[in-house]
């Protein structure tokens, strides 16, 4: 129990950010026309690729002798990049089609 209380106190700012961001997310999406649901989902999909930062941090901190760890981290960075690059490029491609109309 004490652990939880301490965690709450130590991370209060983070908790505030989380709550505020939840509202920001809800507000942003609230009034979007159905037409844009697919590109929006795709764009949001690319944004959560930010998890790649975690993969990079893991690799930067890893002991160089940890071969298995390096291999897993390497794979994680590849997959994270796939998420980011693929996500943004495919969203751009979709939106490009909306633009090329006469």
């Amino acid at each position: 129990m004490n652990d939880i209380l301490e965690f709450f106190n130590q991370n209060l700012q983070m908790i505030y950010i989380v709550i505020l961001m939840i509202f920001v997310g809800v507000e942003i999406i609230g009034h979007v026309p159905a037409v844009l649901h697919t590109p929006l989902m795709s764009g949001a999909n690319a944004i959560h690729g930010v998890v790649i930062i975690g993969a990079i941090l893991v690799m930067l901190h890893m002991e160089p002798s940890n071969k298995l760890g390096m291999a897993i981290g390497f794979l994680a960075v590849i997959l994270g990049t796939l998420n980011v690059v693929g996500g943004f490029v495919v969203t751009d491609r979709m939106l490009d089609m909306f633009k090329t109309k006469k």
Partner: protein
Amino acid sequence: METFLLNLAYLVASVGFIIGLKMLGSPKTARKGNLIAAFGMTLAILATIFIYPHTAQIKVPGFVYALIFTAIAIGTIIGWGIAVKVEMTKMPELVSFFNGMGGATAALIGLLEFHHNVGNPGKMFMVIAGMVIGSISFAGSMIAWAKLSGKMRKPVRLPSYNILNTLMAILIIALGAYIIYTGVANPAYIYALFALSLLYGVLFVLPIGGADMPVVISLLNSFTGLAAAFGGFLYDNMAMLTGGILVGSAGTILTIAMTKAMNRSLTSVIFGAFGEGSNAAAGSGTKIQGNVKEAGPSDAAILLNYANKVIIVPGYGLAVAQAQHVLHELEELLSKKGIDVKYAIHPVAGRMPGHMNVLLAEANVDYDKLVDMDDINNEFKNTDVVLVVGANDVVNPAAKNDPSSPIYGMPILNVEDAKNIIVNKRSMKPGYAGIENELFYNPKTSMLFGDAKSALTKVVQELKGM
């Protein structure tokens, strides 16, 4: 100074995500919004690679940098290649695939971070939560991808799968809590948890029918966002935290918006009332009485030629046949003859909300000609000919008339109000929801059988000769 630069980069990235996502919500600014979010992401990644090691005062050997750059290069080449090549009809499964990659990244981070955080319950909670959610998202997305790309068509249901899944979820939570509270250092526990989470992701999506996949993908999308946010907590990383939470909450709202468009609740999607209902309907054999009237391309062309007002209802069949270009040609031809032509877009036409708009935009169809369901539903009664191309469930009157139908209550296009209806379909086979459509037996309906592309091409040729 370096700490300032790093924090600034993360701050700019977070603002970029928010502004980018906001701009994605309007057709005019959407493309720029995507680029802004991408810019924020690039900045955050570069800052992590180049500035972070200085602020954390860690010595990173050169080969680690080489590995990171190689990994990013490989990911970029593959990701870019897939994203540029894939056909627009395959968009939903592609989003699912990329989503799965993000989930896998979160899962792998969890595996690697496990032993660093033994004995620290707060951090261990973040590690475990991120890994479990990431694994579920990865496994679930892969199943959704397989289903949408047609590799796995039928929902697979183990006996009493709802109870089984609930038990598995409880087991995962219990095992996670055990690891966090006891602080066990044996990696076998985390691998067991990893395996269980993957299995849960598979079992979670397997019973859900293909028609509900967009909802599932959207849900898993917000899951991955959540997993990224837990990573943000773990590393005290603001870019990860804000980006993750933003996607988590926006994704949840998007999921709810999608279920609303289909008049379904999230619980019925997950616990699978849909598929069971349709199986029951098929089994009880509620046969529709009546005759089906068949029309050839010339009949269809004549009907269209003498109409004043035509509404086209495109469905996924159009996309599968890659017929959007010839449909656009048909529409232009009719417009030139002075016929008023519009497209009626059902919110879930295609495989995802907005999917049909993307496909038609690809074929250069004028944005103004695409009309949303609510705006066009009153126009059908003044319409001479409705041309339904490869759509089925979204024009099924059973959604309004038959309370026993599994799609009862789903808003549909009031196609049957029009004076004439031409339905282009490959065969009489039921649509994605697996139910019969009485519209096809309506005396006003003519069935134009055949692949949308070849059938429409023939109609266009006939029209040109008139």
